[in-house]
């Protein structure tokens, strides 16, 4: 599936310039591109329901700005998505508390029985939101530090320090070391 004919002209830089008409191409964009954006949302939220909710929230915001987008709409929506995630406070749900760091629970640690990849996945879940966003943008979206800074609305230096802190945290995460963690 391709969106280009319905959407716009490609510029020489390969970016998509939106037509000036009212939300022309929005539906095609959602159908064609939202699958990838959902993957980003899932890597951020680690929850299918929340990922879908986050993505639809971002797409809804983008719909109202659709005629004003000058440039790559996917980048625009990704910026909304990541920044919505970084500041998301789900007040309605009482059982889950939005915190930067997931608290340990009384549930026995199952990680010893699963592959190291799953350990790393769980360890990523313990990263603060901004650091997790940097990790996803840098190492899943393959954005440069400058592009990541643009999406997050921060400096390149902040991206570097957040990435460095994230990697440092992952390297000492108890699930990824040989040391015995808490019984929890």
């Amino acid at each position, binding site marked *: *599936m391709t969106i280009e004919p319905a959407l716009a002209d490609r510029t020489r830089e390969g970016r998509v310039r939106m037509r000036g008409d009212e939300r022309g191409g929005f*539906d095609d964009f*959602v*159908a*064609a591109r*939202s*699958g990838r954006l*959902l*993957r980003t949302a*899932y*890597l951020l939220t680690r*929850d*299918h*329901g*929340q990922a*879908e*909710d986050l*993505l*639809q929230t971002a*797409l*809804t915001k983008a*719909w*109202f700005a659709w005629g004003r987008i000058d440039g790559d709409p996917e980048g625009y929506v990704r910026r909304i998505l990541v920044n919505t995630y970084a500041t998301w406070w*789900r*007040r*309605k*749900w*009482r*059982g*889950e508390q939005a*915190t*930067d*760091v*997931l*608290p*340990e*629970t*009384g*549930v026995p640690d199952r990680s010893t029985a699963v592959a*190291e*990849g799953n350990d*790393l996945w*769980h*360890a*990523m*879940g313990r990263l603060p939101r901004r650091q997790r966003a940097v*990790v*996803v943008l840098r*190492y*899943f979206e393959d954005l440069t530090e400058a592009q990541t800074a643009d999406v997050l609305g921060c400096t390149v230096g902040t991206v570097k320090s957040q990435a460095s802190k994230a*990697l440092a945290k*992952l*390297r*000492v*995460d*108890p699930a*990824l070391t040989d040391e015995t963690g*808490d*019984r*929890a």
Partner: protein
Amino acid sequence: MTGIDELRATLQSHAPQVPDHETQQRVGAVHRRVAVVRRRRRAAAVAAVAAVVAVSGAVVLRPGSGEPEPASLVGVTAPDTMTSLGYTYDRGDLVEGQDGSVRLRLEASDVPRLVSWATSGDDQVVTVSGLGSDPLTYSADDLTDWVYVEPGVSGSVRVEAREGDPGLAVYSLSPSASRPDGYTRDGVTYREQVADTRLLDAEVGDLGQAELSLDPGTAARARLVMSCEGAPRGTWIRAVGSDGPVGGTECGGDLPVDAAATGSWWTLDSAALEGSVRVVVQTSYRDSTPVRAPGLRVGAALYTDSGGAGNRADETLVEDGGHLWRRVARFDAEAGASRLPTTAPEGDGPFLFWAGGDAEVGTLAVGIGDERVSGALIGSGGETSTLVDAGERVTLTVRGGQATADRGVWISYYELAD
């Protein structure tokens, strides 16, 4: 972790693939959201006009005359105080609506508040919305139910009456009234009774004190709650039982007024309870050196624990929103089944539900009516809850995984018990 390549591989392997048919459904879902936002924006524009009119029509009564006198709210006497879970709240602003509705904007406060309502008509059924909650139908008597507003939260509360005009009353935690039975120090209280658990021991330390010790007595099982404030970022509060560490979390936020009703708790078994339980705020997750910080304050308590499977499906009494709730229905999916359609009880709502499940991986999607809403990470023991109207359809579905063979998903409904 061995490196960036491993990180990339992990991200790629966990990124879900989305079938095309779901993207088509998403198009429709987004348009429905757009329609909702447009309706709200139109309503807000109308309300802005109405607000100008309401300046002369709405009655706003504020305290401060200094003379105790009965306060009337749409013809109903508003008591000087209200009580919630043993805490006393003092009456503040009263706002009377017109044309069947009333709306009140609340600025953030340092103390918890209750926003209650009354109606001028005989029919006391109202719809309450705001503060991040969808509209819910309440049928409680005048000024007997409320929306609980946590410290630091701001927003609007709107009440629409089915008959007559509604009024809103704001009650703030009393600074002078005595606290509930239990342990209180420096404004932090661990209640003697929290749902069906009983206080075993509690302590709030001196400023700068990084370690506490709790005595479980002869308890064979116990629940631990602990929190801290005033510590540098990245510090951890950790509990150590007689057989080693039992849990911890990052230190942050403020010590809550109702300390046992907020945050996570950990279950300790007999092996951990053979001696005292030590609670320490340490420099970092890895560094167990106690923190030195002049503004540090730590509080912790042990409560009885009746056992069971350790999730809320087994609890007959729970607390939420300043209320005590009693379980009235419980549904369990058949072993291994990953979908559980249910209907909330009929009667005077709303009802509280807690839902969860048991699966190695995956998430629990919760659908209320025709709306699919967020759920919980059940792979990590997550549970979730909210209020729903009486008779509402609630469907649980495990997504991205499979419920375990011996126990699937569950949901318990609760009615007000206070």
